Structures are given as structure tokens and as C-alpha cells.
């Protein structure tokens, strides 16, 4: 499956492109990374894996000159180098493609690519040449956009490709990709992996950071594992299974990632939606969920899943024949009225729509359930602190101090805080959009347990997820969406990664005949 760029093949002996010895970084008395001895060979894909906080980002920033090391050295082609900033690192042939999209939304694709290094003809910028060269690069990365498209108009995945194209503008020895697939849908991921393979065939070394172990398995030649700021070791990818990788990352045997499935013994219908139409989102969707049930909603990014739910919550222009929550007909849909009836929605965008990053934890926690905590006009601050203490222990939110700002928490802890926030309203139906996006495996498993616990307590849960494994592991029933329509409903043993992907891409349910010999899909590794 792995070793697509054959490092010990018959081709010429491969040079070590980049090497580090004893590399480390400390902020004051606190060491965040120590003693990293890495060697990166030209033409290989070298994956760096580790939990959040293991030091991956710090390592990437050290290698790309964004941060300067406090100990150790970096060697390029055997010569020691020091980078004062990212510009020097880029001049030396090392470029980092950030996980976050760092593009100017109002400029065109070509203008972004050449930002700060515009081609000129005399005194004037040479737009024609830049557009021509950009078009070539876009083809190379498999992007369908036009050089003169405005970046702000592009979908996230295309912006990510533009960002990668930008890194390819100059010749580089080492390209560092930090979670490049975090915002991509499955087919786009495939295209990206192809680009990476192409790059290393041209002798470029690729450092690849990803949470998605299946990608690492499919792509990497060698794998370096970081844990708690230390380098655990480097292994050839061919010798490691995904499970072994995960265990090296957490440093212990993995418990079962997903809670055991519940009996298919559901209670009464808690939410019934008939003919919901959302502007630019969905075409007449009807669905329902019952007490004690986890309903999964699958599909590719852009299939309209988030739009459907935001429409249901009255956050987008929409209309519906009827929406019934807890037996109560809802005539005017808004976050507030639905919350009152017992339905809440936890957004996929926890930084943009979920939490006030600059506010402290207590106001964040209390924002949605404010009327419960403070029944009068005046804020009940003592009640808010008590609620925060309760939430911190109930949801295992790891904080040193209760007066932190939400933005200072790790992704996993932010997600738990957000979950605690919507649960404060004591809902009976909880819709969670991408419950574990960008969080590490330990927190993931906890979130799954919370979902399991709430459903066992008689609540209903709708989980939207782009991770097929997650749907397979959690859901009792899965709706698959494509182009704004619900195209398939899968039950019980029919829920497999394969069937979900099939419906999401083809727009129809896989029949028994098409399924063929299938025995590997039900995600046994993690169960």
C-alpha cells in the first residue's frame, strides 16, 4: 500500500536533503520540543505524526524558519544553516504550506500566488505573464480554478490547492505540508495525494503532517512519531499499521475508540422534519430521529449537510412543510425557539461560530443557556462560575485556570467546552456538526463517549461527519446527501464506509449485487 516513492529502489542513491541534530525549542523555562534528530531524504514522503500538543507544529516552524531553535542545528545538504525568518528558509529551498488558509480573499488567484514577488515588465506588473504561469501551476496541482478568479469566491478546498500551488512557484528541496487535507473532501484528498507523489518523483522531499492515519499509510515512505515534545523514533511506513501508529502516538494500547453499539430499541420520535428547503442548500429534505438514536448525516464536503441543518435552525433562509420537536409544532424557527423546544445545534466552525475566543470560559459557557442560569435581568455570575466548574469536571475540560480565554484552549478542549455550552440548555435533541474535526485521538474517544452517554440517557443525536469511520462507528442510521438531496438511508449492518462513499459519490444506494466480496470495511481495527 505504501512506499510509492521507492527510496531504496534501483535509482541513484538518494541524498539526505535536510537533517537536524538535537533540535529543540524552549519558551523561557518551558521546553516544548527537545532533541529531534531527523533526516529527510530527497524524493521521500516523510510523515510526522503525533497528538495535538506533541510538538508537530513547533517542529515545522523550526524547520521553516518561522521560529528559531534554542538548541541543536539544522543541516541542508550536510551544511549547517540558520534561518532568521521564513524568507531565508525559503531561499534555502524549504517552504511550509500552512494549515490555515493564508490568502488575500479580494485578490485573484494569480495575484495571491505572486504576492510580494510580482513579475514586472519595466515599472509595471506583468499580469499576463503571472496569469500564464499560474495557470500552469494550477494544472499541476489539479485545480480547476482560473488564475483570475477571486480567491474569496472559491470553495475552501480550492483555496487549499491555490496555497499549495503558491508553494510550488519556486523550486524547493523540502515542502512541508501541515494538515493539507483538513478541509478537503475525499476525492480532493485523492487528487492531493497524487500531487504529493508527483512532487517526490521530481526529487522533492515532502514532510507531511496529518491527523488522518489512512492518508499517512497510503502515502508515506517513513514515519516519525512525536509525543509530549520528544521524538519517539522513525520507522519505515511499510512496517506499521494504522493501529500501531496510533498506539505510538498515545504511548499506550488503544482502548476501543468507539463505544459499543446500543440495542436498536429506540423510543418515540423526538424530531420530525418534513420537506425542508434551504436557500442554496437542500432540495426538500425530510427526516426524523427518535429517542436513543444516533442519526448520521454523511456526504462529501459541499453536499449541503451543514446548510441543511443551519436552515433547520433558522440560521439560513429556508421553508418547511412542518417541523415537530418533542411533539411540539414549531411555526417560527430560530435558534432561540428551537432551543426552548429542546433542539440545539453545535456548529462545525468552533472558532468562527462556536466560541468567543477572546472571552473567558464562563461567559462562553453561559452564552446560550443564559436565561437558565440568570432568570432575571441581572447576570448570575456566581451561577456561571458554578456551571463552569461543573462542566469542567463533567466534560473533562483540561484547564489550569478558570479565567483562561477560550482561544487559549487546545482544539479538543474547545470542542468539549462547546459541547458543554449547548448541553447547558438541557436539550433532548442535539445536532453535532463534525464532532471531532481537528482534535486528537484521546479527545475524540471522549467525545464519542459523551454522545453515547447522552443517547443512552434517552436523548437523540444527529451527527454530521465527513469521516466515514465516525459514521460507521457511531450511527444507528445514516442519511447520505449529495448535491443538496438526501440520496440514501442506511441502517444497521448496511452502514459501511464503502456504502456511504458509494451513495455520496453516485447519488444512489449500493445494491447487494454491487457490494461484492466485502469484508474489510467495518473498521475492525478500532473496535
Amino acid at each position, binding site marked *: 500500500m505504501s512506499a510509492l516513492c521507492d527510496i531504496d529502489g534501483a535509482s541513484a542513491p538518494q541524498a539526505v536533503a535536510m537533517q537536524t541534530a538535537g533540535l529543540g525549542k524552549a519558551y523561557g523555562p518551558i521546553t516544548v520540543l527537545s532533541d529531534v534528530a531527523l533526516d529527510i531524504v530527497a524524493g521521500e514522503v516523510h510523515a510526522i505524526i503525533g497528538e495535538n500538543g506533541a510538538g508537530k507544529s513547533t517542529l515545522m516552524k523550526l524547520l521553516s524558519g518561522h521560529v528559531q531553535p534554542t538548541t541543536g542545528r539544522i543541516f541542508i545538504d550536510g551544511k549547517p544553516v540558520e534561518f532568521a525568518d521564513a524568507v531565508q528558509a525559503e531561499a534555502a529551498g524549504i517552504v511550509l504550506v500552512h494549515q490555515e488558509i493564508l490568502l488575500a480573499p479580494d485578490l485573484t488567484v494569480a495575484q495571491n500566488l505572486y504576492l510580494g514577488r510580482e513579475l514586472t515588465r519595466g515599472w509595471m506588473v506583468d499580469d499576463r505573464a503571472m496569469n500564464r504561469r499560474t495557470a500552469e501551476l494550477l494544472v499541476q496541482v489539479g485545480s480547476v480554478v482560473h488564475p483570475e478568479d477571486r480567491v474569496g469566491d472559491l470553495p475552501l478546498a480550492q483555496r487549499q490547492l491555490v496555497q499549495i500551488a503558491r508553494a510550488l512557484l519556486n523550486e524547493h528541496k523540502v515542502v512541508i505540508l501541515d494538515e493539507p487535507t483538513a478541509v478537503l473532501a475525499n476525492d480532493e484528498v485523492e487528487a492531493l495525494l497524487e500531487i504529493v507523489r508527483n512532487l517526490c518523483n521530481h526529487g522533492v522531499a515532502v514532510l507531511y503532517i496529518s491527523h488522518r492515519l489512512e492518508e499517512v499509510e497510503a502515502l508515506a515512505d517513513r514515519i516519525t512519531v512525536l509525543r509530549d515534545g520528544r521524538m519517539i523514533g522513525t520507522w519505515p511506513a511499510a512496517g506499521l499499521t494504522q493501529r500501531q501508529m496510533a498506539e505510538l502516538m498515545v504511548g499506550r494500547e488503544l482502548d476501543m475508540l468507539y463505544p459499543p453499539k446500543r440495542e436498536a430499541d429506540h423510543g418515540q420520535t423526538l424530531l420530525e422534519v418534513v420537506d425542508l428547503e434551504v436557500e442554496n442548500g437542500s432540495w426538500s429534505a425530510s427526516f426524523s430521529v427518535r429517542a436513543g438514536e444516533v442519526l448520521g448525516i454523511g456526504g462529501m464536503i459541499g453536499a449541503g449537510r451543514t446548510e441543511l441543518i443551519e436552515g433547520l435552525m433558522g440560521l439560513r433562509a429556508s421553508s418547511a412543510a412542518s417541523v415537530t420537536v418533542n411533539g411540539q409544532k414549531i411555526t417560527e424557527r430560530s435558534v432561540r425557539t428551537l432551543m426552548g423546544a429542546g433542539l440545539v445545534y453545535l456548529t462545525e466552525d468552533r472558532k468562527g461560530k462556536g466560541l468567543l475566543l477572546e472571552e473567558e470560559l464562563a461567559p462562553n459557557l453561559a452564552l446560550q443557556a443564559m436565561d437558565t442560569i440568570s432568570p432575571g435581568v441581572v447576570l448570575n455570575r456566581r451561577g456561571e462560575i458554578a456551571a463552569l466548574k461543573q462542566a469542567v469536571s463533567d466534560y473533562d475540560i483540561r484547564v489550569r485556570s478558570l479565567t483562561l480565554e477560550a482561544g*487559549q484552549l487546545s482544539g479538543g478542549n474547545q470542542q468539549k467546552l462547546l459541547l458543554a455550552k449547548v448541553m447547558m440548555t438541557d436539550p433532548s435533541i442535539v445536532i453535532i456538526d463534525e464532532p471531532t474535526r481537528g482534535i486528537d485521538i484521546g479527545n475524540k474517544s471522549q467525545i464519542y463517549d459523551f454522545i453515547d452517554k447522552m443517547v443512552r440517557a434517552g436523548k437523540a443525536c444527529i451527527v454530521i461527519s465527513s469521516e466515514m469511520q465516525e459514521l460507521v462507528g457511531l450511527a444507528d442510521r445514516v442519511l447520505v446527501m449529495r448535491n443538496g438531496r438526501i440520496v440514501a438511508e442506511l441502517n444497521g449492518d448496511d452502514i459501511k464506509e464503502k456504502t456511504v462513499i458509494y451513495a455520496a459519490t453516485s447519488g444512489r444506494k449500493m445494491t447487494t449485487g454491487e457490494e461484492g466480496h466485502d469484508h474489510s470495511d467495518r473498521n475492525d481495527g478500532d473496535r
Partner: protein
Amino acid sequence: MTTATATMATAEERSRIRWADFAPFIALGVIVLLGALINSNFTSSANLMNVITRSAFIAIIAVGATFVISSGGLDLSVGSMMAFVTGIMIMTMNGLAPTYGSWAIVMGGGVALVVGALCGLFNGLIITVGRIEPFIVTLGTMGIFRAFITFMTDGGSLPIDRSLREAYRPVYFGNFLGIPYPVLITLVVVLLGAFILYRTKYGRRLVSSGSNSEVARFSGVNVGGVRTIAYVIQGMCVAVAAICYVPRLGAATPTTGQLWELQVITAVVIGGTLLRGGKGRIWGSVAGALILEVIANVMVLSDMVSEYLVAAVQGAIIIIAMLAHRFTRNR
């Protein structure tokens, strides 16, 4: 390990934020000290009371502006609105004076509050329902209100009826236990404002809307409603300022309240409120208003710089304050 880093950073961050919160008060102290060194008359209680009383108008309006700005909005129309409200109030009082005598003052004040609230509501609704930038909307209403007062005064002066002068005079010139009424009124407005902003659910929702309106919306906060109310509060603050202002000069003119919007925004911003919303500092805004007035006073007393340059110094202060803010944040 990462948690440890985060906590360390927080401790630092926290002490820095505290400093930033105190900065306007420290600056005020420094300027007062300088004033005392430059001219001994500055510290006479008569002069100090005078300065504080004169800063009352800007301080009161700045309380409202703190609401608007921390909700993520902006109101450029406050100076013109103040003149317009003053005009309406004087006309009401003059009209009612023959029938109701001194009660006309109270009724005029009531009308002023209603008109101020309606002006604010007008701004707020166009901004939230019409979804237009607050800068543009209030730039427009600034022109409208200014034209109205010019029209009402016929380009000249609209004085208050002689029969009311004597009864109305104490509202600006009188005092209670030695404290001038405008200062007391300011204190009430500030305490009320601080209570609403920091202690009520409305205040929390307002700051949330300014901090990130999407988060607020997704959490069930009626962002448009919350913001509209902020403009209404602003309008009422303007009306209160107008009520205190009229007895001072006894008339409304086309230049009443001219450029006050700049002073108000300056006071709010040097007081530590973030112009992009999400953080409101009521007491800071008051300190800001005092800083502006004290500087003007010191310049008048000092003879070193012409008082014609007061506005230039005030303008420089907002820039220096922002640079200081940027400097302390990036260090």
C-alpha cells in the same frame, strides 16, 4: 507541556491586560500632574470643578457610544443629533411655557428623551434591518440632523424663553453639597451604564455580538435587536447631555455640538474600548472625556501653546493612545 506554556502566557497576558485597563486613568493622572506643575491656578477647586463640569457632555454621550462601539457599531451622528434634540427641546419648552410655566422644562426634558431615543432607533433600524454599514448610515443622519437644526434656527440662534431661564439655570450652574448637577447626572448615567453593560444579560449579549456576531447568532442571541437597543441607549444619552447643555448657553445654534462626535469617539477609544467591538470600558470612556477637557484647560492656562491648537493636540492624543496600545500588545 503545551498547557504549561498556555498558562504561563496567560499570567503574563493577564497582568498586561490589567495595565492596559488602567492606562487611561494613569494618563489622566499624569496630565493633571503636569497641569499642576505648569500653572498653580489649575489645581484650584474652582478650576477643577469647572473642567469636570464641562467634560460632562462628552462623558455622558461617550457612555452611550461605549455601548454602540462595543456592539460592533459606530455613531457619527451624535453631535448633530445633540443639536437637533436641543432645538426640539427648546421649541417644546417655549411652546409650553405660557400654559405650564416651569413645568414646561420637565415636559421639554421628557420630549428630549423620547426624541433622542427615536433618533437612535432610526439609526439602529436602518443599520440592522437595512443591513448598511453604521459608518455610512450615521454619516447620512449626521447631515440630516445638522440640516434640521440649521433649518429650525433659520441659520441663527434659537433661544430659550426668558421666563424659563431662571428656573432652568441650576441644572447646569447649580450644585448639590458642592457637587455641580451635571457632574451628578454624569455619575448617575455612568453608574447606570456600567451596571447595564457589566451586570445584565443584555450587556453580556451586546459584548458577545460585538466580539463575534456569528457566535452570538448561533447561540440564539438576537444580534440585530441587541444592536438596535445600543443605538437607542446612545440616543437617550445624547438627550441627557442636551438637557444639561441648554441652560449653559440658553440657545441652540447651527454649530451646537459640532465635531462632538470626534471628541466622543476619541474619549471612548482612549478609554480602552476596542473600536472593532467586543470590549467596552465605561469608566475608561469617562477618563477619556476628562483627559480631553483637562488638556484643553491646561493649554488655555499655560500660554505656551495657542488654544487654537487644542483640537490638534486632542487629535494627536488618539493617535498616541493607539500607538501605545499597539506597542504594549506586541511586546
